[in-house]
């Protein structure tokens, strides 16, 4: 008995053991086989090849019913060794198929996959129907599934959707929206060709006509898109259509007055705007002292402005991103267009090189008054110069469906000389190559290489004083931007950029009586390397978030020398105690920064949403400009031993509403932002040809906050918008030593502080040929400093200014009107003309308002013992203008 029980027990134990053994080996075997890595020779392999060759050769035994297997399906693998499990699930993906394993064998079987489990991708590009121009930022929305995506900077999109019927709506501002119904059963590719919205009098529905877009679906607050064709209709000073002047009608964007350069976004200095032309940074965006920007409106496709938060792919500036994209050129037919205006005249030629595959665009612009100046009888006038030219050339080539290459170039040249003064020349040069690749249905990338140079020269042609002074900045940049459409409503963007900055702050060659006298400040160089990754996804169907991080390294590198100053004393030539020399390539100072960004969009219902943004940005390059607005001679400065990078933190929250029926779009946004370590200047700072520039500089902080309201409405043939900003922008400069603080180190209003800023614009299409438009602006006068006493030095009366920016100029307001007359579309015989033309008549400052630009506190011309206050206005009268434009 005892024996039996022992045996029984033994059997029980062993069977348990055997069972356990069996179970575990089975588990191990199963794990083994699915975990096995299979070597793949190609990236793209058909299911047939996998099942008949690759897997059997790798020793995997398979069992399947031929009728179930999608043999012709092609699979893409990004790694050459893949786990079997991954391969199998890819085979079963989007098919009524699943697999099991038993005894090291893979068994495929039928599986009735629910429709919602199938996911297919539609991808492609959005274009203009007539010109073939790519439309970036168009929205592609599947209404049923309530998911959507916007096309990227190159018009490309990819949208993953469940199997079944969908209504796809493709829309873009200024174009007729397109609706497509489709039954999605496989991955599909579409190129959507949208028809431009035209103004037809009888066409009562002027749907989707938008001069400036208030985005309801975009995740970020404070994003605006300007479309040149449409903002071209508002009145401009001397009829010169300009993207920057146009942007001033948006909330939160301003400049410091008429005849000044640069724009200020949400209380930031004008060097805090990242101004890009087709991905390349442009260092000076002004011609003619800011009257005209460097962007030729004929060539501009669109302008994207981010002022609240910007995607992680952008970095290097604190306040905003203004990305100007030029048109690619019509890829269907050749066109020639141009215009004659009071400031510039323009020509543009565009057309296909090889139809659909390749196109080009060349545009040029020039002032023409030099012709009169050079022929003047008066030598002082004859020797004077005030002109500019610019040239854009662009060429693109579709290598195939998936690869596209762009070449673009820009050359700008300004020249200026008054009487006996020196001749000054400056300009940007830009060259870029871009390569777009649709790597797969879901992965798109763009590689950019560019060169950007800004050079400023002072030329003294007078025989005895013959000299040439030069300063310049040159960037070599390489960047890659990747967009991965990971899942429906889940997008990953990542990329990197490498920029080598080379700065020549000053170099002057002089020949006096045969002696060569050269002064050369040391070149400065730095490497700026950035990487970023961001994810945008839906958390719930009505809550979308985007989070990302940008890591940047800025390395100020030798050769170079750095002065060492006595501690505890202000920096000056007297307090230099040593000089550190750095060899070529040696790093002088490195900065590392992580810049987190976050956005949230809560869609309350179909037509309203709330957005929240947080932005952190770092700026390593500073424009040294101790004047109210930048001048062309200002030099850029790299962060280094004594000049820290500036850092900005901004939060904004906005409410957006769009009522399609009433054609109203409205938004209200609140923002708060702080900037630290911004550059300021000591009194009387000498910024030119200074090899110890740090002794002229101070650092400070700034903060800005405000509310921006924007409402746009169309009523029949009348459309218009209102923009209002209530804001405060303050600055603080607290120096370490006496005389280095401004206003005792307290916060004070910055030059860009504008309490109220209101503008209203309206465009009315009166008849088939006449369009009228007008805009009115009103804003609080700029902060100004008033003297509280006076004294005399050597006979000169000097006003004493105890504080900076404690008073203000009078409020500014102005009304402009313009009218556009289209040329006749048909000739006398009733045939349609081949060419189009139109005239634009405009009046700037209609009611001749004398807006105060400055007060001069000075001695009376006739009686030097008396002092007086003079109000200075840039414009005292209405300025009429006319331009003529044509296209054929």
């Amino acid at each position: 008995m005892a024996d039996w029980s022992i045996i029984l027990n033994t059997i029980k134990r062993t069977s348990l053991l055997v069972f356990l053994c069996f179970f575990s080996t089975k588990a191990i075997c199963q794990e083994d086989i699915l975990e096995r890595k299979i070597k793949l020779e190609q990236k793209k392999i058909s299911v047939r090849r996998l099942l008949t060759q690759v897997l059997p050769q790798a020793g995997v035994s398979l069992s399947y019913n031929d009728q179930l297997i999608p043999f012709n399906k092609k699979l893409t693998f990004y790694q050459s060794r893949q786990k079997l499990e991954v391969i199998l699930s890819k085979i079963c993906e989007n098919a009524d198929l699943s697999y099991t394993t038993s005894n090291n064998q893979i068994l495929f079987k039928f599986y009735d996959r629910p429709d919602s489990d199938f996911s297919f991708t539609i991808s492609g590009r959005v274009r203009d129907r007539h010109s073939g121009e790519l439309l970036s930022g168009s929205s592609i929305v599947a209404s049923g599934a309530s998911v959507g995506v916007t096309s990227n900077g190159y018009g490309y999109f990819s949208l993953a959707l469940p199997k079944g019927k969908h209504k796809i709506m493709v829309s873009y501002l200024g174009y007729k929206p397109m609706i497509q119904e489709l039954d999605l059963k496989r991955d599909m590719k579409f190129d959507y060709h949208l028809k431009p919205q035209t103004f037809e009098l009888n066409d009562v529905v002027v749907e989707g006509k938008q001069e400036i877009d208030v985005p309801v679906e975009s995740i970020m607050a404070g994003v605006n898109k300007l479309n040149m064709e449409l903002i071209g209709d508002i009145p401009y000073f001397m009829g010169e259509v300009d993207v920057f002047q146009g942007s001033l009608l948006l909330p939160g964007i301003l400049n410091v007055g008429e005849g000044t350069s640069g724009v200020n976004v949400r209380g930031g200095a004008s060097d805090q705007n990242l101004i890009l032309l087709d991905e390349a940074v442009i260092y000076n965006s002004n011609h003619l002292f800011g009257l005209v920007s460097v962007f030729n409106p004929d060539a501009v496709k669109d302008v994207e402005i981010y002022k609240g938060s910007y995607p992680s792919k952008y970095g290097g500036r604190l306040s905003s991103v203004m990305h100007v994209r030029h048109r690619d050129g019509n890829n269907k037919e050749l066109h020639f267009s141009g215009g004659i205006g009071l400031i510039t005249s323009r020509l543009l030629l565009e057309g296909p090189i090889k139809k659909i595959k390749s196109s080009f665009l060349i545009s040029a612009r020039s002032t023409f008054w030099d012709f009169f100046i050079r022929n003047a009888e008066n030598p002082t006038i004859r020797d004077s110069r005030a002109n500019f030219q610019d040239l854009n050339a662009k060429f693109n080539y579709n290598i195939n469906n998936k690869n596209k290459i762009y070449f673009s170039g820009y050359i700008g040249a300004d020249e200026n000389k008054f009487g006996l003064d020196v001749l000054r020349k400056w300009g940007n040069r830009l060259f870029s190559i871009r390569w777009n690749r649709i790597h797969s249905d879901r992965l798109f990338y763009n590689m950019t290489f560019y060169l950007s140079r800004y050079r400023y020269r002072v030329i003294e042609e007078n025989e005895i004083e013959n000299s040439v002074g030069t300063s310049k900045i040159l960037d070599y940049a390489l960047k890659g931007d990747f967009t991965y459409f990971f899942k429906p409503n889940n997008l990953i963007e990542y990329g990197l950029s490498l920029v080598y900055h080379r700065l020549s702050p000053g170099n002057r060659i002089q020949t006096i009586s045969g002696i060569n006298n050269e002064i050369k400040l040391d070149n400065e160089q730095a490497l700026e390397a950035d990487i970023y990754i961001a994810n945008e996804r839906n958390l719930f169907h009505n809550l979308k978030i985007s989070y990302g991080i940008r890591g940047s390294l800025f390395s100020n590198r030798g050769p170079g020398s750095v002065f060492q100053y006595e501690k505890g004393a202000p920096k000056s030539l007297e307090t230099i105690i040593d000089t550190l020399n750095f060899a070529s390539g040696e790093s002088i100072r490195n900065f590392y920064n992580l810049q987190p960004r976050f956005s949230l969009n809560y869609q309350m219902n179909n037509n309203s949403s709330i957005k929240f943004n947080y932005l952190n940005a770092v700026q390593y390059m500073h424009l040294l400009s101790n004047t109210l607005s930048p001048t062309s001679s200002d030099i850029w400065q790299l962060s280094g031993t004594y000049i820290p990078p500036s850092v900005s933190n901004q939060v904004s929250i906005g409410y957006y509403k769009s009522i399609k029926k009433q054609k109203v779009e409205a938004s209200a946004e609140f923002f708060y932002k702080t900037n630290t370590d911004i550059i300021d200047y000591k009194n009387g700072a000498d910024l030119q040809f200074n090899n110890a520039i740090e002794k002229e500089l101070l650092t400070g902080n700034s903060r800005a906050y405000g509310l921006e309201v924007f409402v746009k409405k169309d009523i029949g043939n009348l459309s218009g918008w209102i923009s209002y900003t209530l804001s405060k922008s303050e600055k603080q400069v607290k120096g370490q030593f006496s005389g280095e603080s401004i206003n005792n180190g307290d916060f004070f209003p910055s030059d860009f502080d504008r309490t109220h800023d209101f503008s209203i614009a309206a465009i009315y299409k009166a008849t088939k040929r006449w369009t009228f438009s007008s805009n009115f602006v009103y804003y609080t006068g700029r902060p100004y400093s008033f003297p509280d006493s006076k004294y005399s030095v050597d006979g000169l009366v000097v006003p004493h200014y105890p504080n900076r920016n404690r008073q203000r100029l009078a409020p500014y307001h102005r009304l402009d009107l313009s009218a556009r007359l289209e040329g006749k579309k048909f000739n006398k015989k009733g045939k349609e003309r081949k060419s189009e033309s139109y005239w634009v008549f405009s009046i700037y400052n209609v009611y001749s308002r004398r807006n105060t630009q400055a007060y001069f506190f000075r001695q009376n011309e006739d009686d030097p013992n008396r002092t007086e206050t003079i109000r200075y206005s840039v414009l005292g009268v209405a300025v009429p203008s006319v331009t003529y434009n044509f296209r054929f």
Partner: protein
Amino acid sequence: MFIISILIIVISCITSCEDPVILNLPTGDEKLVVDGWMTTENKPYSIEIYKTIGFNNQSSYPPENNAEVYVTDRLSFRYDFDEVGQTGVYESDPLELIGKQGEAYILHITLSDGSMYESKREVLHPLSELSNVSSNFFFDPGLPVEDPEAKQYFVQGLVRDIPNVKNFYRWKITVNDILRNKPEELLLFDDKFTDGVNFNIRANNITMEANDRVILEHRSLTEDAYNYFQQLSAQLSTGLVPNTPPAIIFGNVRNINDSTEIVLGYFGASSVSQANLIINP
């Protein structure tokens, strides 16, 4: 000096306007002003001491009377300045004090209320030689060339810069016995780009007519004085925007016992040479 664009000028000629306005300006506390200059000329030097007044106040500055004013040199020799009547103007005695090149001077002031002030040490720098002073002209862009008044004359001269030192200069120009002294007529230059060479300076910011009698004073400045005048010039230039932001222009005089007191004005020292010229048509 800032770039002046013709365009803006052309536009401003046609459209811009300046008109006098009355602003209600704040009036700050009175501040002490010290304004005086020493040279190498054989004449009394004057130091003016007074208080600031409100900008809109058109009366004269309240003088600081009965102060004790003197200058000391490197060896602490003391040279007294005596008040001329009750004017707040204090003058030196040329028999006692004539500025010497290379010497350094400090101004000392004790006001009647006992508060004491002192300037920084101001070095009287040697002066580079000025030669070839002549006249030149350009045409007024606003007048036809035939107009006899279209020719705008100015003076020019060649400076032989003293090598290996930083030199700073000011020209003062008197035309027909009137010192041309508007803010835009300040003429300051340095040898930043021209150290040790002969260079030509054209005073074309001061224009005159044919047959005018001109006295050109060529003066050396210290770096501090040069920077001081540069700040004055930048702040007083009522030219077109963009402008430098206004700020307190600190001079080189301070209260010995209260470093926070703002004292305005400048005590300077210059070597001077003169050239006389009659503008030949």
